[in-house]
């Protein structure tokens, strides 16, 4: 099978996956106790007002009609052309377009995810390689110990420690928000502040957004790095034992060439695959990180809206997360094929 037909198949397969995910969220939200209309009015409305609201949101219709209506909205191509995002219905809390809200919150999460991923990969691969190279030494044990600690420590705790040290005590870095409120956000091109401010040529805004990003992405990155250390270490240990690594040493190649050009480059492919698989966990962590750092992303959006049983908002956000995870694993597969000469493109 050629790479192109493989990619097309994978993309087509995401449709039933996402549909299943969506249906589950749709059902679970409605089975859970809690009524979005009552929560909206905080019990201060008359029964008539509540009935009107219910009709407005379509909640008076039978469940399957609501479901069909929702799916019908998703494929409303005219709406998509008009707004630039699919019709995910209206929020049951604010009566705004959920699609719009998600598309404005998503870049914040994406930016946090990218930077955390970079930090986790750099720490993970670096320490994993060092650990495997000094197998069974004190350094190896220390690094593995660090990895275990990052598993055990809760995100909000690490986040708060960072906030206390770097924000409150040293006053070096902001403890929340994407950007200092006194600074205007850069014009939205990608929605990622660091990139947009560079595109604008505004270094000041770039550093301001970077400063805001540092603590949340460091928190999430460190928490995830333990898993990456373990993956990198295990794969390196396996690869370092292989014949071609010994053969490379026997040819007198430099230590660094053997470690990076031979061992790491081969260990990298399985590490890459596993990183792709960890992406869902990263997004779970992003939800907690966003809450800790008042980060206006999709994670905080979900947490805010779940309290109000904002069905449509939660459905939209979960599907967006699902789509994101699927796309990342597709990209990882393509990268794998690109890096491994044994897979023909």
């Amino acid at each position: 099978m050629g790479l192109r037909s493989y990619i097309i198949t994978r993309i087509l397969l995401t449709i039933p996956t996402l549909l299943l995910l969506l249906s589950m969220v749709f059902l679970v939200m409605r089975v859970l106790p809690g009524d979005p209309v009552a929560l909206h009015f905080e019990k201060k409305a008359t029964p008539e007002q509540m009935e009107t609201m219910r009709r407005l949101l379509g909640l008076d219709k039978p469940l399957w009609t609501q479901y069909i209506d929702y799916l019908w909205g998703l494929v409303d191509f005219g709406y998509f052309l008009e707004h630039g995002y699919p019709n995910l219905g209206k929020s049951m809390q604010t009566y705004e377009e959920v699609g719009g809200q998600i598309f404005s919150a998503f870049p914040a999460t994406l930016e946090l995810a990218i930077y955390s991923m970079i930090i986790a990969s750099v720490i993970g691969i670096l320490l994993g390689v060092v650990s495997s190279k000094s197998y069974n030494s004190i350094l190896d044990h220390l690094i593995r110990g660090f990895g275990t600690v990052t598993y055990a420590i809760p995100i909000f705790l690490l986040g708060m420690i960072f906030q206390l040290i770097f924000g409150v005590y040293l006053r070096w870095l902001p403890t929340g928000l994407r950007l200092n409120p006194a600074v205007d956000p850069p014009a939205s091109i990608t929605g990622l502040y660091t990139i947009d401010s560079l595109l604008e040529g505004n270094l000041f805004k770039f550093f301001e957004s970077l400063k805001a990003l540092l603590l949340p992405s460091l928190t999430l990155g460190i928490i995830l790095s333990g898993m990456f250390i373990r993956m990198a270490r295990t794969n390196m240990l396996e690869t370092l034992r292989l014949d071609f690594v010994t053969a490379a040493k026997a040819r007198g190649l430099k230590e660094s060439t053997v470690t990076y050009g031979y061992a790491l480059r081969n260990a990298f492919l399985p590490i890459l695959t596993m990183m792709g698989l960890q992406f869902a966990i990263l997004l779970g962590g992003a939800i907690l990180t966003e809450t800790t750092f008042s980060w206006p992303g999709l994670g905080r959006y979900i947490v805010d809206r779940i309290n109000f049983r904002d069905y449509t908002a939660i459905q939209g956000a979960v599907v967006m997360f699902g789509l994101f995870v699927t796309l990342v694993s597709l990209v990882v597969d393509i990268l794998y094929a690109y890096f491994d000469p044994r897979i023909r493109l």
Partner: protein
Amino acid sequence: MPLLKIGSLTVDYRTSRGTIRAVEDVSFSLEKGETLGLVGESGSGKSTLGLSVIRLVPYPGVIVKGHVKIDGKDIVRLPEHELRFIRGRKVAYIFQDPMTSLNPIKKISAHFAELIRTHEPNVKEAKALERAKTVLKDLGIRPERINDYPHQFSGGMRQRIMIGLATALNPDLVIADEPTTALDVIVQAKILDLLESLRNAYGMALILISHDLSIILERCDRVIILYAGHMFEHASSTELHRNPRHPYTQGLLQSIPNIELADQKLAAIPGSPPNMLNLPRGCRFWPRCSYVMKICRTKEPPLIDIGHNHFVRCFKYSRGRAKS
């Protein structure tokens, strides 16, 4: 000064289940251009001995005693960065399995270019590739194929490439560790012929490792028989063939099928090699030996010089027999 001189070399693997002494008190030397065969059953320590010569014994192996002198320099005591100038340049190693000995994500060209430019930093990339192509041509591989990846070659061709990498810098010594075990019979002979012709052309010394005594007798000047890490017999090939002394060697020779004597019986050696974590007391061969004496069960025999550069580790040849 001999090219290689090994003295009382002892190598241990310190495993969690106990210490395996894979090579014990091995001594021999090798002159320039000479060929030496190492013969022994699986687990007898052939690879461990071979890898000790370039100090690449795998973890958790350690050289605990002895010296390995190359041109008079003891590599056991050399700092790691100086070893790099010996590996690949003075001593090259060819591994058993060509399918796994090349980096799967690097082209053949990169393998050669890295080797040449590591040891001769002044050579430009293009020049290195030109040289690599000449090497490939000599090995019977089309030079254009230098841009292919390892998986695009057959096992026999990959072993040719490994031989090319081993000989590209014209080293003084090539160690070939069962270079044909993973290949089919017809390819085996071709690879060994290729190795021999390159050796003749460049005058390199060769240590050929094999579990097949007949191959070694056919292709090497001298033979060392290894058993559970010990040298059991050491002699020239002609001497060993004519006059094998150790009961183990005699057993090995008798189990070589002989085409001329069509219906001879293959005399296999009874039993199996000892457990390296729990060696028998005395001679480590006695449980399988048909000449076993009382002393063999209690004392380890020394390596005995019986003249004509012939050495045997067996009490049968100790002068005046043993005083038990």
